[in-house]
């Protein structure tokens, strides 16, 4: 039961204004979506706490506002961190489940930073990507056991084997699913435009496809999540692929959560729920209680789309993910999407975000190894996601066995996100994760789509440099080549599931 007094949880950040240089333009006050700044006769802190989103510091023409950590110094404590103490006090005041957003921020370590890539020296020449073409084109989908070729009536050879539907992408990087509702329409539009421009894919997330984005359906993976928001026949048939979302890395085992204050009239229409209601997706799909049920839904979707679209399955990386992935592939999925515990979200209970799930690096390695050992690796592509930060992470993921990676947070950072973890409030000053029209309109899809496209282009060029250094000219040659990786500062227990040798070996 909520205690009805002013909260005693102190603010984490404070704003510091150089009032001598300030020209009283009030851009910072108007810009703050969190009501954290006010203007009396000068810019002063507002009634609500600052969350360090940095919209004000970025847009101040005088550069005279700074964000500092609130200097209420406390004694350091290994067990009772300040953050932990605040969480306890907040819960004592409210009796509720604490929500957070974006991905797990705790110091569990990042395994990409314990992996190093190889390069060619002397015995195998490296390749210059500026001089030789590099093939980064990737096909996602079920591959045949063997490929048979025949001679056509024109005497030329042609493919005899009938292929399952494939997704062609020009670079092995796609955008992760972020629902309309968790992010604004302008943010989704920016992702869709960038995907179309670069020849990649975007993902509708579980909020349906807005009518304004219909032109981008053909490069969209559409999600069929447990809430079945926006899932109708045209949604399925206009898409590039359909993805059954079982779970996501940020909140394994629980369903999607869009707080009521973010369910505007527009969102209510797209999701078909009452405006202002919390859009809680059920924890399981209530028609999937076993692997056979999953197979049933996969084939229901294939029937509904007349077997024209790949149908993939997205799961959170959890214990026994290898066995689960094997089941998913045998259930008929054309790709498996593994989302690690660092994956982002618009809203999740903090304890679930931070303590449930496993790193995607390990999940990827054990799934790839298990599918190979069972002789079914070719039956589905693997997409991995969850804290992919740069092209080096992409290259390492591919070396561990991924066919492609998906990025969520990285794309939002290109939109101005400063990972303040307040998406669930709907007050994002940058207009990325807000449904408030006055905030969402700040995100210009013309500009931001170009920035997201730039990100993909930049990483693609870096991938070419990395591939060239590795002495290969096609991403296919790196795929699953664990021998091109070495572990550093890892124990044997960690190296073994990764299937990687230690540096020096």
């Amino acid at each position, binding site marked *: 039961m*909520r205690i009805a007094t002013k*909260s005693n*949880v102190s603010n*984490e950040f404070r704003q510091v204004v150089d009032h001598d240089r300030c020209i009283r333009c009030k851009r910072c006050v108007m810009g703050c979506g969190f009501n954290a700044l006010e203007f009396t006769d000068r810019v002063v802190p507002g009634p609500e*706490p600052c*969350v360090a989103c940095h919209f004000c510091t970025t847009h101040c023409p005088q550069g005279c506002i700074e964000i500092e950590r609130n200097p209420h110094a406390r004694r350091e404590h290994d067990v009772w961190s300040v953050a932990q103490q605040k969480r306890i006090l*907040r*819960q004592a005041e*409210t009796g*509720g*489940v*604490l*929500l957070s957003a974006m991905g797990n921020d705790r110091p569990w370590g990042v395994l990409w930073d314990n992996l190093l890539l190889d390069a060619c020296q002397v015995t195998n020449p490296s390749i210059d990507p500026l001089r030789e073409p590099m093939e980064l084109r990737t096909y996602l989908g079920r591959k045949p056991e063997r490929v048979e070729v025949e001679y056509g009536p024109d005497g030329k050879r042609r493919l005899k084997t009938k292929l399952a539907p494939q997704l062609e992408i020009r670079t092995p990087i796609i955008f992760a699913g972020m629902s309309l509702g968790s992010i604004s329409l302008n943010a989704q539009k920016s992702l869709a435009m960038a995907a179309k421009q670069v020849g990649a894919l975007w993902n509708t997330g579980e909020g349906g496809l807005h009518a304004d984005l219909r032109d981008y359906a053909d490069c969209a993976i559409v999600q*069929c999540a*447990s*809430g*079945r*928001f926006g*899932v*109708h*026949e*045209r949604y*399925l*048939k206009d898409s590039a692929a359909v993805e059954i979302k079982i779970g996501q890395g940020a909140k394994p085992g629980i369903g999607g*959560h869009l*707080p*009521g204050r973010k369910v505007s009239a527009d969102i*209510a*229409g797209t*999701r*078909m*729920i*009452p405006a*202002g*209601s*919390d859009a*809680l997706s*059920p924890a399981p799909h*209530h*028609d999937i209680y076993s692997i056979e049920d999953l197979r*049933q*839904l996969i*084939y*229901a*979707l294939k*029937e*509904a*789309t*007349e077997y024209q679209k790949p149908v993939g399955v997205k799961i959170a990386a959890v214990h026994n993910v290898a066995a689960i992935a094997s089941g998913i592939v045998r259930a008929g999925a054309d790709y498996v999407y593994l989302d690690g515990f660092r994956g982002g979200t618009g*809203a999740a*209970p903090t304890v679930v975000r931070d303590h449930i799930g496993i790193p995607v690096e390990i999940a990827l390695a054990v799934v790839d190894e298990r599918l190979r050992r069972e002789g079914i690796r070719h039956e589905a592509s693997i997409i991995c996601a969850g804290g992919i930060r740069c092209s080096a992470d992409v290259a390492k993921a591919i070396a561990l066995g991924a066919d492609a990676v998906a990025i969520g947070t990285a794309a939002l950072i290109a939109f101005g996100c400063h990972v303040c*973890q*307040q998406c*669930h*409030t709907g007050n994002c000053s940058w207009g990325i994760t807000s449904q408030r029209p006055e905030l969402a309109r700040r995100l210009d899809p013309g500009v931001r789509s170009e920035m997201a496209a730039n990100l993909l282009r930049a990483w693609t060029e870096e991938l070419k440099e990395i591939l060239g250094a590795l002495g290969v000219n096609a991403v296919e040659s790196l795929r699953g080549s664990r021998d091109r990786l070495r572990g550093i500062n890892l124990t044997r227990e960690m190296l073994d599931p990764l299937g990687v040798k230690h540096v020096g070996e």
Partner: protein
Amino acid sequence: MEIDAQGVYYRQLNEMIRDAVRAGETHLILRNVNGQRYIGAGLNGKQVTIEINGVPGNDLAAFMDGPTIHVRNNAQDGCANTMNDGAVFVHGDAGDVVGYGMRGGRVYVERHVGYRVGIHMKAYKNQSPVIVAGGTAADFFGEYLAGGTLVVLGLERGGRPLVGDYCGTGIHGGEILLRGEYDPWHVATEHIGVGAATDREMAAVRPHLEEFASAFGVPVADILAELFTVLRPKSHRPFGDLYIGRP
């Protein structure tokens, strides 16, 4: 047009149905159906009617958008799964998970439905799904209901309770109509508003009761002879106070 489904694998049967509809057939009669799944999945076209003789398999009318299906027997699980529009008449029982995530259209089941029926159905403006079961429903009826109308009539109970446990848990839109006596502990949570059906609610559901009555040969007067109780959301955010978003 008649299609003999005897010994035909579901994939071929559904291809035949899709080809027929594409060729302009509007009235299909299927004979000797025996458990084939996904009949009508993803099919669209309000002008299409399919009559099923025999028992269809799981996921009948899944993702369907417009056609009408008459089942001259029981249906199995997943009937009208995420159905967008259209009508399904089941002259018998239907299984579990009827109308999961349903978004429009109507499902009329002459007798009993199973578990997890009408979960997270949703509605928007004049697109509002309706499920009417003539007998009883089992646990989790209308869980997480976000929109639409669920009706269970109890015309023939067969010794079962009208609804099972956790009826309407998490309801935040739409309504559930229960005809006659039911056990109050089956609807025992604070966020469900329970009350006698108002005249307006009865007027709104009347056309569906009449459609049910005419399809299954039940006099409408019999249906209306008992009082209806309506379960409505008390709040559009039944779990609103549970989650704390402040930093």
